[in-house]
């Protein structure tokens, strides 16, 4: 009996290793990543299409997250290239370099990391201050310095701009601005605020399509405060050697994406709600390969989402169940384990995903690891509680029979606690279905992809395309577990409910 339990545990552990191993297999196709905003995704699509014109199949992992995530992913080799801005490199990613950073210093620092930077794409996406055109004309404001004469203008600044050193605090000091009203708000709301006359000045990105659409005048940075944010490709030297077509595709695009072109590409996606790939294809005058129908997209996302939930839950069961058993038998250890899982639970899921990237790269693996950690608490706790709350006379009775502990556990204690344990597994599964949508932030796919894109584009139908199947899956999972609970509850225990 001892050996049978051992075999079961070994098999579970082996399955875990196997799954992890499969997920780690390196890809044969180069991967371009993009950040979680429209412009970056369009650029990613441009590179994918350009590469395909040159006969190279390139995978595009869309909207993986912010600069920090993409930078990490590139450095660990989870992706081979992504579009970046020179300002982000000098101000954030390589902020340790002596300022101002020369091009040579930047190239050298990158090559030390095994990375390289392409020639500029042809546009700059940097911060600027914008004022409605009509107001600007009335006041005669052309430069940022001109704002000093109008301290009553109401500033509505994005939260990110407010918190950055190269944002509001630096700008205010450089120009000696002291406006009466400064409020922080979400970037996507700033244009609405300006359009409705609720604010007069906001920070914008130079390529925002709303600059044209809402008739915003960008003020001249006459003291050259804002650093340059030239769009470039960042890529791995090793990848460029392995796939020469990758490098030539990047160089082919360099110098050809002008500011007005980029703004118009953004406008077509954000304001006219056309898909990024179609917009990119139109720009390159080519057709977009790889577009899928609605049904196939749903099937693909369902597969990805289910895989995330099932694999993470399986691993959590393989570890959580034995851990819960040990915790029930050794209360001191149990409290420590429970404390640890509680701490894991308090880590925000986004932060957890970011922690995982240096360890596991991007894609399904870090998402599965995150979901696995979140699943541990309900499984460990319910196993522990289920076992330790069995009636004392049954424990005594089981012990007095003269059966070894393994047999007691498998034949008596686990079946009696099965309902409680399963309730924990079911909780973990339902939570996983929801949390797995965040996996899209790090390129794990699933239902989160349309949700994130929908949020970014303020496109409700697109959000629903992910949210509705996720809700349906959560309900199905719950139903499945209710049925399982009925199955694992021995008939002798169901009587208690009937009686």
């Amino acid at each position, binding site marked *: 009996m001892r050996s049978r339990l051992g075999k079961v545990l070994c098999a579970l552990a082996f399955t875990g290793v196997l799954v992890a191993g499969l997920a780690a297999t390196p890809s044969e196709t180069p991967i371009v990543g993009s950040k979680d905003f429209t412009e970056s995704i369009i650029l990613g699509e441009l590179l994918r299409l350009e590469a395909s014109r040159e006969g190279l199949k390139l995978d595009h992992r869309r909207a993986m997250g912010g600069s920090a995530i993409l930078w990490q992913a590139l450095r660990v080799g989870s992706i081979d290239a992504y579009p970046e801005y020179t300002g982000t490199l000098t101000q954030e990613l390589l902020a340790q370099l002596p300022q101002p950073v020369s091009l040579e210093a930047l190239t050298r620092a990158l090559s030390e990391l095994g990375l390289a930077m392409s020639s500029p794409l042809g546009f700059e996406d940097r911060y600027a201050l914008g004022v409605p055109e009509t107001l600007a004309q009335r006041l005669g404001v052309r430069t940022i310095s001109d704002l000093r004469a109008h301290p009553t203008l109401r500033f509505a600044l994005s939260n990110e701009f407010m918190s950055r050193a190269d944002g509001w605090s630096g700008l205010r000091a450089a120009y000696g601005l002291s406006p009466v009203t400064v409020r922080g708000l979400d970037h996507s709301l700033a244009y609405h605020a300006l359009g409705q006359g609720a604010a007069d000045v906001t920070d914008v990105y130079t390529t925002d399509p709303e600059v044209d659409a809402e008739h915003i005048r960008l003020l001249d940075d006459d003291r050259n405060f804002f650093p340059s944010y030239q769009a470039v490709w960042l890529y791995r030297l090793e990848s460029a050697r392995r796939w020469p077509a990758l490098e030539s595709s990047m160089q082919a695009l360099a110098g050809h994406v002008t500011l007005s072109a980029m703004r118009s590409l953004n406008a077509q996606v954000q304001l006219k709600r056309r898909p990024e790939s179609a917009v990119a294809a139109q720009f390159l005058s080519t057709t977009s390969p790889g577009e899928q129908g609605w049904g196939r997209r749903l099937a693909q996302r369902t597969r990805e989402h289910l895989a995330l939930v099932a694999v993470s839950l399986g691993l959590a069961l393989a570890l959580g169940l034995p851990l819960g058993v040990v915790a029930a038998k050794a209360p001191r250890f149990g409290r420590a384990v429970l404390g640890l899982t509680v701490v894991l639970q308090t880590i925000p899921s986004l932060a957890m995903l970011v922690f995982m990237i240096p360890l596991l790269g991007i894609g399904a693996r870090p998402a599965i690891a995150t979901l696995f950690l979140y699943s541990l608490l309900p499984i460990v706790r319910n196993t522990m509680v289920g076992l330790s709350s069995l009636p004392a006379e049954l424990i005594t009775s089981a012990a*007095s*029979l*003269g059966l070894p502990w393994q047999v007691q556990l498998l034949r*008596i204690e686990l079946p*009696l606690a099965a309902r409680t344990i399963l309730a924990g597994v079911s909780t973990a599964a339902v939570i996983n279905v929801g949390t797995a949508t965040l996996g899209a932030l790090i390129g794990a796919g699933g239902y989160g992809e349309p949700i994130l894109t929908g949020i970014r584009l303020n496109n409700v139908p697109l959000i629903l395309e992910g949210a509705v199947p996720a809700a349906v899956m959560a309900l199905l999972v719950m139903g499945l577990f209710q049925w399982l609970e009925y199955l694992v509850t021995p008939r*002798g*225990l169901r009587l208690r409910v009937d009686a």
Partner: protein
Amino acid sequence: MFSLEHVSKRFGTFVALENLTLQFPSGAVTAVIGSSGSGKSTILRLLLGLELPDAGLVRVDGVAVSAANRLAIRRRIGYVIQEGGLFPHLTVRDNLALLPRHLKWSRARIDARTLELAELVEMPASALTRFPLELSGGQRQRVAVMRALMTDPPALLLDEPLGALDPLVRFELQERLRQLFRVLGKTVVLVTHDLPEAAFIAPRLVLLRAGRVIQDGTPAELYERPADDFVRRFVAAYRPPPLPHSKVSS
């Protein structure tokens, strides 16, 4: 078969047994009586190795009970507790088969033994496929006794086996147990707080108070020569039936 030598056992600050020395010879039926908390149940738990003594020695067939040998010792002892301790997720048959199956008994052997014991405790064969919650209290205790006897161990320990039963069933089962113990000839230790029950079933009574033996003898000795005032009060603590001349108002 069992002996306790200068055994002490505490639970926190509560003294369950204090320097207790007691023998239970092979083949003898002994009842251990006393009030709640007098340490009766602790004796059984020590014999089974469910607890280990703080001081002194507990021996089963001359061998000191330890963490290493208690599994083997438990297989030589049948144990019955108040509510039967039957596992609600298993049928009567599966409850009975737990240990035999682990010992690799054949199905036929298990079935034969089950039927033999069902006859012994007067349990209808039709009840064997039921779950414990579908049985009456008396039937559950019969099954508990059957389970304790499955592998025919040389000793039987019973902890308030009839404590939760209604008086009629209890009366009937007292008779049944007394006969059973005579037929089986096993070493039996019966723990109860019911003196008439103990006196009816066992030829030897051990009266316990606060973890010490107050009196050890036959029922007759206990009734006729109580060792001290406590024993006298314990013996007297039963209400006589109503007197025949008491009037019933009409």
